[in-house]
């Protein structure tokens, strides 16, 4: 699904969409723990999230520090901007 030529914006958007669906299902499942449709939906989007996170991380750096191994090189890239509140050109 995640092609190598996709832009940062597209990959980040996919991560945000999948991440949001997981948050929404997490809260719903807290009070509906046996809803089979919701459980299936969670599993589906968990897999999609992992795929999106892997594609994003490889090209644009870690989303959490646990992703660090997946980022290339022998350099600590965690602090590299832009940070989430910044727009693309601000990172120092």
């Amino acid at each position, binding site marked *: 699904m995640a092609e190598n030529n996709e832009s940062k914006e597209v990959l*980040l958007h996919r991560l945000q969409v999948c991440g949001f669906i997981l948050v929404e299902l997490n809260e719903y499942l807290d*009070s509906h723990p046996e809803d089979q449709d919701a459980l299936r939906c969670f599993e589906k989007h968990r897999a999609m999230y992992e795929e999106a996170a892997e594609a994003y991380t490889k090209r644009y750096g870690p*989303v959490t520090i646990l992703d660090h191994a997946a980022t290339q090189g022998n350099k600590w890239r*965690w602090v590299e901007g832009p940070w989430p509140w910044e727009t693309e050109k601000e990172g120092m």
Partner: protein
Amino acid sequence: MWVYQKKLQYPVKVARPNPALARVIISQFGGPDGEMGAATRYLSQRFSAPNDEMKGILTDIGTEELAHIEMVCSLIYQLTRNLSIDEIKKSGFDTYFVDHTTGLYPADASGNPFTAATLQSTGDPITDLNEDLAAEQKARLTYDNILRLADDPDVRDVIKFLRAREIVHYQRFGEANHTDLSRFYPLWAAAYRGYLRHNSVFQNAGMTANPEKSNTFFGIFQNT
């Protein structure tokens, strides 16, 4: 324990600075019904939650509120970039600027610092959950008022997302409020409100008895 995700929950991209609007939106950072109060409220209350569902819902919604603090702060940050002194003076942002420049300080729209005095953690699950239901509606109302004051579509899009989350959280707290918390609540009120529906001994009495026609309903009260 928390792990930071280096992304916003929902994109915030504001093209045009607007310090007057930032000054209004800051209430959802550090104001009486803001996101910092919400996160503080839920992540404090969860320690006295009596059942696993309530512990889970307070932890997970409290965690989402942390992401909302970040989104509100991102809005304010982007609305106050590249301002001239003239713009700061004309917009009324000068009274904030003199103390905080364009730093993010948790305060309400009138400048009062964030305070835990506007929230509660009572140790009583029914009281806490009803406080949480009210808190979600107060936050929803504040977002409604921001939508009345904001013209910028970049800002309105983010505010509408946050407003929708208040409504979903209200729903989730409502469900937690209907789980069986009966042993933590005076029996008469629990029966009246249906909190005992999972308890077979009281189920019929609590849910179906008509106090006008039967003594069964009041019979429960007499034993408490």
